[in-house]
């Protein structure tokens, strides 16, 4: 069952890939009928495989979580080199199967949605194949039983993300974004890889079962790395966390995520909202038995998470591209998840991961529905007044936004609340930092969500005639998956809060998450003062009210504010100038250096002194030597005389 859940998407992807080549042939032969049939076949096969996978995943979930069976499946040995030995395997604990279930369910909804969304595209089979391929890698990532298989999935989703961001490969901007995503993720992977090496160095193993059981024994071990003696688990956790920061777009390594919106919208929903970007969160939760022993690493996680939450939400408030607003929102919500992990409330972080997957995918697909209706327009300044034209989308966007803003009884309310309460309940300085930034970010989240809704759906339309005439509600095949996700956004929180973080949390998670007894943030979260419990909701309602005030009732206010605080506005609009900075200190110098080393290093120095230099020197010497042979007798006689004189002198000096 488990194997089916993971490998069905791969099979779907391979078949779709073959169909893609056949379809190319049909295009060449100008056989429209055949092309259509092939497109249809690829959609049916990938969606069918995904739905079957989702069904299998649910069955596995039931058997593992409800019936308490161990679902681990060993496949075969991957690498066996001395003590370094690991297998391909699927891990069957709550954390893994929970993710597998979420990924397959959300992914199958997005597959179905794509049938409608991509209907005008001329490379449907390729798109469906990529989506399924991505899903396969994501499943390998979350079901890994050792660090290297996780890394396999980790890099694999990076590849799929690269392919999907650059799906429309004619666009220069899409290609640039795709490369940026891959390379920035590689920087994170650099940390992840070193973390794996360090883990092997310390534990002589990289299999989860082994390292988790050894962790407590190594809790005070030190490691001699980078010319110093450091606390071993801190080194490992920090290195792994660099990987998590790359994949989950945390402050510093977040620059690829907004650009990744160049990809088709279903991609943004699947990869850059619901699944791949949460891999970092999942990884930290998975490695909780190690992180628990390193207070330094946990503090860093909180610091980075909370800072990202506030950074991204400030930027989201001024963006005009509908997808970019949601992208920054994702970045900010990931920040929440991280600081939850950092205060040892792993289950709260995972809870938010799951609820977020539903409502954020809903928001993205809703945005996609808007873009679809607006003939591919993404700029909210050219929208407005759409609620009458596309009412279903409008309602669904409301549901998603209410969940995102954390309004009762939507899913986001439960998960965001418990995170903020846990941050408060940590009773540490860094916990307070996270709590207050989190509250501010919650306010901003509500604000930009309603800014989006009002700019898109209310007021007078700012679109041109032609676009307006085209506006239409999306077909059923797109709305239906949205409804499923909306149901998730409505009920997942209220129905599962007791299991994730409430009464039944121990039976639910079993041993898949490890928390030290001394880390009581989650327990304390249930006993915080009333104002702490109420504050997130107040912040949310406040944000919504402010958005109404600024964009509905006093629409001149935003412009005036932007003009009044020009510096701040520009700073936010340019996303805190991260891209400009990186371009100056990394990208330009790398190319400059590459050219310099090539021309000056290889060309002038090595070749100039080495082979070419020697060749030139030999040529010069030969010419000089040739010049001596002038053919004049007196030249030779003179040279002989000099020689004789020199010899005599030498003998005389030596004799004396």
């Amino acid at each position: 069952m488990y194997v089916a859940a993971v490998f069905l998407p791969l099979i779907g992807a391979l078949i779709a890939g073959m169909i893609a080549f056949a379809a190319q042939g049909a295009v060449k032969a100008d056989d429209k009928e055949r092309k259509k049939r092939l497109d249809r076949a690829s959609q049916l096969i990938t969606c069918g495989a995904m739905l079957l996978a989702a069904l299998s995943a649910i069955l596995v979930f039931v058997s593992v979580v409800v019936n308490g069976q161990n679902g681990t499946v060993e496949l075969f040995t991957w690498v066996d080199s001395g003590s370094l030995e690991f297998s391909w395997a699927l891990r069957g604990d709550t954390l893994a199967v929970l993710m597998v279930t979420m990924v397959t369910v959300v992914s199958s909804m997005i597959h179905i949605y794509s049938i409608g969304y991509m209907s005008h595209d001329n490379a449907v089979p390729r798109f469906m194949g990529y989506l399924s391929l991505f899903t396969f890698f994501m499943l390998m990532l979350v079901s890994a039983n050792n660090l290297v298989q996780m890394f396999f999935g980790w890099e694999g989703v990076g590849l799929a993300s690269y392919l999907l961001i650059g799906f429309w490969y004619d666009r220069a901007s899409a290609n640039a974004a795709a490369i940026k995503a891959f390379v920035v993720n590689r920087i994170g992977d650099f940390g992840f890889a070193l973390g794996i090496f360090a883990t092997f160095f310390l534990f002589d193993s990289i299999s989860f079962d082994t390292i988790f059981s050894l962790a407590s024994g190594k809790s005070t071990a030190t490691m001699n790395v980078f010319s110093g003696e450091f606390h071993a688990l801190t080194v490992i956790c920090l290195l792994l966390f660099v990987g998590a920061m790359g994949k989950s777009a945390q402050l510093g390594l977040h620059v690829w995520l907004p650009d990744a919106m160049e990809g088709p919208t279903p991609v943004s929903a699947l990869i850059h909202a619901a699944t791949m970007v949460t891999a970092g969160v999942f990884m930290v939760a998975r490695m909780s038995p190690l992180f628990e022993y390193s207070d330094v690493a946990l503090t860093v996680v909180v610091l980075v998470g909370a800072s990202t939450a506030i950074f991204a939400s400030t930027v989201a408030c001024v963006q005009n591209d509908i997808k970019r607003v949601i992208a920054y929102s994702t970045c900010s919500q990931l920040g929440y998840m991280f600081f939850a992990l950092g205060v040892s409330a792993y289950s709260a972080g995972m809870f938010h991961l799951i609820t977020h997957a539903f409502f954020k995918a809903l928001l993205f697909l809703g945005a996609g529905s808007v873009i679809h209706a607006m003939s591919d327009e993404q700029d909210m300044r050219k929208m407005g007044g759409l609620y009458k034209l596309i009412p279903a989308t409008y309602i669904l966007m409301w549901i998603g936004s209410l969940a995102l803003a954390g309004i009762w009884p939507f899913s986001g309310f439960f998960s965001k609340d418990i995170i903020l309460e846990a941050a408060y309940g940590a009773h540490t300085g860094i916990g307070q930092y996270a709590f207050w930034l989190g509250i501010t970010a919650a306010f901003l989240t509500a604000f930009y969500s309603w800014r989006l809704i009002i700019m898109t759906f209310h007021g007078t339309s700012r679109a041109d005639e032609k676009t307006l005439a085209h506006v239409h509600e999306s077909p059923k095949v797109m709305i239906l998956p949205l409804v499923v996700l909306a149901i998730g956004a409505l009920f997942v929180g209220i129905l599962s809060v007791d299991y994730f973080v409430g009464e039944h949390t121990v039976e639910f998670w079993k041993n898949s998450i490890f928390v030290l007894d001394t880390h009581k943030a989650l327990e304390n979260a249930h006993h915080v003062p009333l104002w702490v419990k109420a504050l997130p909701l107040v912040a949310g309602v406040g944000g919504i009210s402010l958005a109404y005030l600024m964009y509905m009732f006093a629409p001149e206010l935003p412009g005036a504010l932007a003009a009044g605080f020009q510096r701040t506005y520009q700073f936010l609009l340019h996303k805190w100038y991260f891209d400009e900075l990186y371009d100056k200190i990394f990208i330009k110098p790398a190319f400059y250096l590459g050219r310099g080393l090539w021309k000056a290093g290889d060309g002038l120095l090595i070749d100039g002194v080495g082979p070419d230099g020697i060749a030139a020197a030999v040529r010069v010497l030969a010419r000089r030597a040739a010049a001596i042979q002038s053919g004049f007798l007196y030249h030779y006689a003179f040279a002989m005389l000099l020689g004789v004189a020199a010899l005599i002198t030498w003998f005389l000096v030596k004799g004396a």
Partner: protein
Amino acid sequence: MMTNFPWLSVITFAPLVGVFFILLIRGDEETTARNARGIALWTSVVTFFVSLGIWVNFDNSTAAFQFVEKVVWMPGLNLAYHLGVDGISMFFVILSTLLTVICIVASWVAITDRVKEYMIAFLVLETLMVGMFSSLDIMLFYVFFEGVLIPMFIIIGVWGGPRRNYAAYKLFLYTLAGSVLMLLAILTMMSEAGTAEIPKLLKYDFAPTLQPWLWLAFFASFAVKVPMWPVHTWLPDAHVEAPTAGSVILAGVLLKFGGYGFLRFSLPMFPLASADFTPLIFTLSVIAVIYTSLVALAQEDMKKLIAYSSVAHMGFVTIGTFAGNLQGIEGAIIQMLSHGVVSAALFLVVGVVYDRIHSRDIDAYGGLVHRMPKYALIFMVFMMASVGLPGTSGFVGEFLILVGAFKANTWVAAFTTTGVILGAAYMLYLYRRVIFGELTKENLKTILDVNAREVAIFAPLLLIVFVMGIYPSLFLDVMHVSVENLVDRYQSALAAAQHISAVAK
């Protein structure tokens, strides 16, 4: 099992039988060319399948040399015709025979001039390569090692591009300069140990004072072959001027001579010197990885870019080798095999479009995916293998090397890992400029996708890339015992030396 069958001699000299028949061909130019191609192909295919026999019959449980053949050659000088392979060298023999087949098929239509001589050159080259990897007599090894230069020099010098003379001489002089010193060292070793047999030399303890000199002499030769920074500049020129198949053999097999040499001679025969010079190797290799990756980023010529990436990848190999532990060395061997396949494939990938458009400039291309989707897919797979994506052969090698390096020196591991980031940058940047974008250039609008012959070339390489990536045990199991033996020998020599110096104090 056919234990008495002279496997290695057959594999080594079968190509020369083909050469003999090619020499017999008479007739007009076209028939000569056709027959020469046919004979060369048959010879190389048969040789390849015979060479698989040594894998099938290989005994994984021993570190000793297998399929040993020994005939006294010059008894006065103590020289013998002595062949055999162990877990370290066995795969290189198969790599050589496989790539020769690929080269001959790849040259099927690209070479129209002096086909007969061309095929002879490749078959002779095959004999020399296989002989090099299976020699168990150090003098015989030297003969093969140096002999390879001659056909390679001819292939570049005759069938190469416009600056072929410069490139051919550069290759020749660079490598010759190194190997003269190696010859001196070999003579010293023979007189010191009184034998030319590699198995005996492997067990002989050279005096600690002599080791550094011998090590340096071998280093001079191997470093040029690898090539290590800063003696790498012959490689981009040689690749750029060489015909496609020449590049394939050069990147696929010839660069492995250096890495193989370090493993066969430097490490086990001069363990103390190797340990002393490890910082030097690490420094040069780390520079190679970062320096050449940056240079690759700035390239405008496809072949040059891949040539520079080769230098970077071989930097990983030297790091793994001198990490001196099991993971590092197994990683180095896997990386060499993987690089042999992947870089060869990448040069073939360039060759496909070069055959059609006759340009290696990256700017001459763009948007090829519109006309050549199959080509785009093949290129993508090898690109991903080159950047070391898990699931491909490139990952296993790099990963094992870095694990080994991390044990030896964390700084080295960290610096080397940055090469992985830069590697992704220059390969993706190349791919984007060649494959993606709109198809605007007039001469590309009629370009054809890969044909059946080209698919047949790539298919086995694709298969190897995935098998090695997903189930590397197939390869690791074979080399395990031999590498373990090597590591034991190396570590115990170091421990013994430490013991002596501790006692002396």
